[in-house]
């Protein structure tokens, strides 16, 4: 029952925000996170084309043996990825709350240019209170 | 019996003016200026005053015909405006002390009494009238205030742009006809 990390990926597949919590997963360099975010963006697009029964959304949940990645794709193409333990029931509601904080603290902040890395520390503090 | 309304911006630039000839019979005819001069004043002084207020002699004749509009030599435009501007000082002086918006008959000149309405935004409505018609004027000022507030909400109207909207003009005339 733990949350390991949060990624925010813009609609072009670039990683604009990355936070890891606790030490459930090893901390990688920001460069590696960038690469992983890029591949995830590609995979997400492919998974929606492999559906055996017509059109389907991209991957929602990708799970390994000890952790899983919950993905929320928003209407504007931004992806929120929450890395949690396998049995985390609140992952989806957490993702919705993160999306709400993103809408409040990032999109309404005049000093943030869309699709660019997120620098606003209001966003940081509120994410820490929610997931920290 | 005529009324003159002036809307003055906080920096005292006129934004709107209206002359209204009221058809209502006036309750009390105000005595012409010459008569309320103190008896000891010399005739020379009286002469200048009558010239100054050409209005007074004309208004007497005008009472008789009631609503008919008397064009020509009657109330000179500049005299009216001079009276209105003169009354501004009185208004300023009273405005600081009293905290009420409607200042009843602030100033008197010849047969004109001036009553004013000052909005919180320091916008002055000055009305020159002859007869005493207290609640009519108060209701009229209230309507003009409401219309002014609505005009102010127009984002393109600043405190100093003259109000030229025909709807505003029509509404003010309608209210004047109703109340005065």
């Amino acid at each position, binding site marked *: 029952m733990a949350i390991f990390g949060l990624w925010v990926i813009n609609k072009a597949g670039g990683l604009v925000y990355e936070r890891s919590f606790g030490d459930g997963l090893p901390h990688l360099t920001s460069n590696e996170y960038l690469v992983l975010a890029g591949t995830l963006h590609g995979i997400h697009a492919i998974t929606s084309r492999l559906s055996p029964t017509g059109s389907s959304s991209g991957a929602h949940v990708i799970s390994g043996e000890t952790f899983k990645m919950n993905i929320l794709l928003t209407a504007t193409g931004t992806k929120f990825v929450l890395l949690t333990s396998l049995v985390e029931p609140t992952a989806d509601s957490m993702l919705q709350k993160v999306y709400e904080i993103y809408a409040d603290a990032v999109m309404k902040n*005049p*000093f943030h240019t869309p699709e660019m890395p997120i620098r606003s520390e209001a966003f940081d503090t509120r994410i820490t209170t929610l997931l920290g | 019996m005529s009324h003159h309304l002036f809307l003055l911006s906080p920096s005292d630039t006129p934004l709107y003016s209206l002359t209204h000839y009221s058809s209502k019979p006036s309750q009390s005819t105000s005595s012409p200026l010459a008569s309320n001069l103190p008896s000891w004043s010399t005739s020379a002084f009286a002469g200048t005053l009558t010239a100054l207020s050409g209005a007074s002699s004309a208004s007497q004749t005008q009472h008789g015909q009631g609503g008919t509009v008397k064009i020509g030599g009657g109330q000179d435009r500049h005299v009216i405006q001079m009276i209105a501007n003169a009354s501004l000082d009185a208004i300023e002086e009273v405005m600081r002390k009293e905290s009420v918006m409607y200042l009843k008959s602030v100033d008197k000149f010849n047969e004109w009494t001036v009553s004013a309405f*000052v909005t*919180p*935004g320091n916008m002055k409505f000055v009305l020159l009238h002859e007869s005493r018609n207290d609640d009519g004027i108060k209701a009229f000022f209230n309507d003009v205030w409401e*219309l002014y*507030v609505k005009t102010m909400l127009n984002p393109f109207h600043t405190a100093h742009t003259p109000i030229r909207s025909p709807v505003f003009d029509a*509404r003010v005339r309608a209210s004047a006809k109703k109340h005065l």
Partner: protein
Amino acid sequence: MSYPQPHPRFSVLSNSSLSSAEHLSPASSSRFSLPSAPSINTATTPKPGVRPNIYDRPLNKTRNAEVSAAAFAFMFSEIVQYTQKRVSGINDLERRLNTLGYRIGTRVLELMAWRNESAAKAPKRETRFLPALMSIHTHVWRAVFGKPADAIEKSVENADEYMIIDNDPPITRNISVPRDMSSLSCSSFTAGIVEAVLDGLGFSARVTAHNTPNDQYPNRTTILIKLEKSVLEREEALKT
């Protein structure tokens, strides 16, 4: 951390925005429910197809004429971005936000006064500075931000300075200023509103906004009012 109200609303700022329902159906706009001043334009009900103009809209705070706080936040963020592209420094940006606020302030003063006083027998105006400051602290803040300000202070060193303190100003709730512009306070927009209200009431002053965060309220802001000499002297004269 959830919001105090689920859908916070700023009411008075929104009055000029005609809600689409009213706009589309002129018939409904002829239904004036002005409890206070009998609206004089009932005589001329608008003909169908005539574009309803500003004089047909009621002045009172109607429920559906309110704008959601989110919409206002996005617009304010757009205003700041627009201004930021055209200024050459923080002071310039604050001055522009101040002038924008000033335009809103003049209208807030008139509208708020009309809403409070139009029903009164003898509508009143503030003529002394302290009651004016109090009315700003409560009425203007409630009219614009939906909640009264948190504190008023009189500065000790110089007599002509007063401060209105707001612990969590709604308009800068979503704004986090980057480190390199840390001295900027977007509340100079509010300072503009206060300056306009004071000017309207006859107390001309220079009003600036400053960030005064404390541990409990990171967004705490102080609106500093610096009165002009003439106002001070007049206050002294009127006191006696």
